[in-house]
């Protein structure tokens, strides 16, 4: 069974050629095909080996056994010192236990465990969120009476980032949704000959719901993720620990400016959203329904009371608070790795959008029952 890598002459097995990583698979399959078995007690010649690296050494040691490899100097004295040293060093490394028993469970157990883990995770997530909200509110009240410790610069910087810079995208998005709603209304109401009510449809939906909801969802995607990534990167760089070790409160320094910035930005953005939603509606009604802009304004004034505007705007601070708090909390949950930053950023966006819609649904129910 002579092959490129291994040959048997009488009682001696000769290993030959380049035993390197590049040929690892070839040598391994050649060994598997030959009936060579273990060579622990046979005479082995390594003279014909032209190159040897760690991968090749591993194969040789697996073939001849660790003990024989350790005593390589005795039976292969003519092998270069460097390769002897390599064999001995690798043999020592392989002599240590290499494999770790991985805990194995049945599939049903695993499935149950994963369900349980999810439930416990969900539960502790909500508890943490409540606790964090409490902490933030407590700090807020604590600082409310101490204007010297308000971080005005940071707050204004965050207002610029998450409020001002978001104006174009919020305006554009709500404008387009406003146009879509108007189109929908025009199509449906045409059958009743009541296309004039398209104005009411756009006005009601944007003042009560869409203006604030779309702005909140956009900020949940745009700002909650930014908060999580900012704070998460600080966390994994031990900056949060550094703050605490210096006796500074990360809630006061990092969270409150962000929460305050959101509380100020979101109502304004919601207002922008309402206006440009109405503008989108007005554009469609004036272009395709022949309702003039003047008539649009008059109908708006006559049919739509200011209550709807207030109902819509009243939700904005709540959404803002929830988005900011979830974004910051997820940031604090980041641990070490880059992967963790990614996971928590995703989680903060999903959670904040979910909470915004949930709160909106509950609020709609409440306002309806109240008759507002």
């Amino acid at each position: 069974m002579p092959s490129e890598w291994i040959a048997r002459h009488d009682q001696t097995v000769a290993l030959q050629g380049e035993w390197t990583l590049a040929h690892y698979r070839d040598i391994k399959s050649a060994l598997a095909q030959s009936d060579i078995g273990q060579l622990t007690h046979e005479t082995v010649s390594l003279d014909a080996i032209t190159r040897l690296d760690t991968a090749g050494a591993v194969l040789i040691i697996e073939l001849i056994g660790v003990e024989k490899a350790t005593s390589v100097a005795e039976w292969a004295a003519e092998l270069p010192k460097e390769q002897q040293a390599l064999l001995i060093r690798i043999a020592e490394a392989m002599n240590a236990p290499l494999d770790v028993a991985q805990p194995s469970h049945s599939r049903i157990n695993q499935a149950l465990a994963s369900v349980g883990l999810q439930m416990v995770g969900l539960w502790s997530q909500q508890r943490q969120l409540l606790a964090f909200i409490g902490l933030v509110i407590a700090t807020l009240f604590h600082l409310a009476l101490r204007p010297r410790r308000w971080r005005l610069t940071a707050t204004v910087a965050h207002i610029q980032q998450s409020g001002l810079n978001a104006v174009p995208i919020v305006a554009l998005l709500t404008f387009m949704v406003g146009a879509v709603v108007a189109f929908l209304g025009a199509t449906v109401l045409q059958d009743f000959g009541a296309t004039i009510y398209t104005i009411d449809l756009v006005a009601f939906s944007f003042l009560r719901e869409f203006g604030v909801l779309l702005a909140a969802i956009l900020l949940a995607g745009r700002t909650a993720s930014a908060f999580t990534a900012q704070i998460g990167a600080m966390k994994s760089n031990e900056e949060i620990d550094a703050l605490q070790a210096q006796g500074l409160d990360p809630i006061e320094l990092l969270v409150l400016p962000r929460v305050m910035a959101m509380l100020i930005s979101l109502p304004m953005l919601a207002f922008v959203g309402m206006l440009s939603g109405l503008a989108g509606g007005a554009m469609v009604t004036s272009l395709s329904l022949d309702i003039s802009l003047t008539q649009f304004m008059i109908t708006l004034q006559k049919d739509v009371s200011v209550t709807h505007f207030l109902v819509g705007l009243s939700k904005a601070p709540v959404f803002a608070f929830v988005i900011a708090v979830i974004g910051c909390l997820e940031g604090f949950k980041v641990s070490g790795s880059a992967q963790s930053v990614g996971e928590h950023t995703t989680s903060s966006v999903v959670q904040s959008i979910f909470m915004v819609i949930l709160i909106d649904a509950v609020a709609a129910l409440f306002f309806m029952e109240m008759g507002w």
Partner: protein
Amino acid sequence: MSDSDKPIKQTTQPVIKVRGLINRFGSVVVHDNLDLTLNRGEILGVVGGSGTGKSVLLRSIVGLKRPNGGTVEVLGHTLNELNDKQRSQIERRFGVLFQRGALFSSLNLQENIALTLIEHAKLPREDAEHLARIKLSLVGLPPQAALQFPESLSGGMVKRAALARALALDPDILFLDEPTAGLDPIGAAAFDQLLVTLRDALGFSVFLVTHDLDTLYAACDRVAVLSQQHVLVVDTIDKVAETNDEWVQDYFHGPRGRAAQSANTASSTNAYRQE
């Protein structure tokens, strides 16, 4: 791996030749006409004050930064003249240990090391992970570490694991960027020892950027001092320490330098006594 017929040390065949290297960041000149040679099988320590461009030099040789001028010749090839494929071939023969380990945080240790074995050497996952575990054991990590993720490791373990990853493809040249920074003295000494042992067994050349005087005395064959945008002196450590330069004198003959020097002489006298 070097060829088998080469003796372990005392060869002066160059593996890296840096000639006339120029590096600038805007108007800041980091390197100006810098020459440096790394010989086969040697451990070359590169020292210099903060901001003298030790890491930049390493990054220019490895190919992470394109130099503004000059040539870097690695294993007989000039890096700038190669196309991407040839370059990648050369870069496979490098092993780099970054300052903070730079282990992939989403992979466990054995996957960290197996990655290049799977991607470059095209090994099946099972074989690659087997070799990876041997590499981990080679750098002195316990078997349980193979399944751990980088974030749960101590600084010393990260350095060892990063060394194992740098060794994954049996590189010809190993680049180490401050490998003992942040290690306790015992861990750092063990790392120096490990480096020398592995160099003797595997025969690679080492480009070692460091601040650690003990490492210079314990592990390096030659030391290069970077200063004033070029290599001030490169020689054995005893001769470098004699150089008439203010920074070199402060560095080697300051309180820490003297301590490292005397520790080294003490340990070598002990070794003689034992013999």
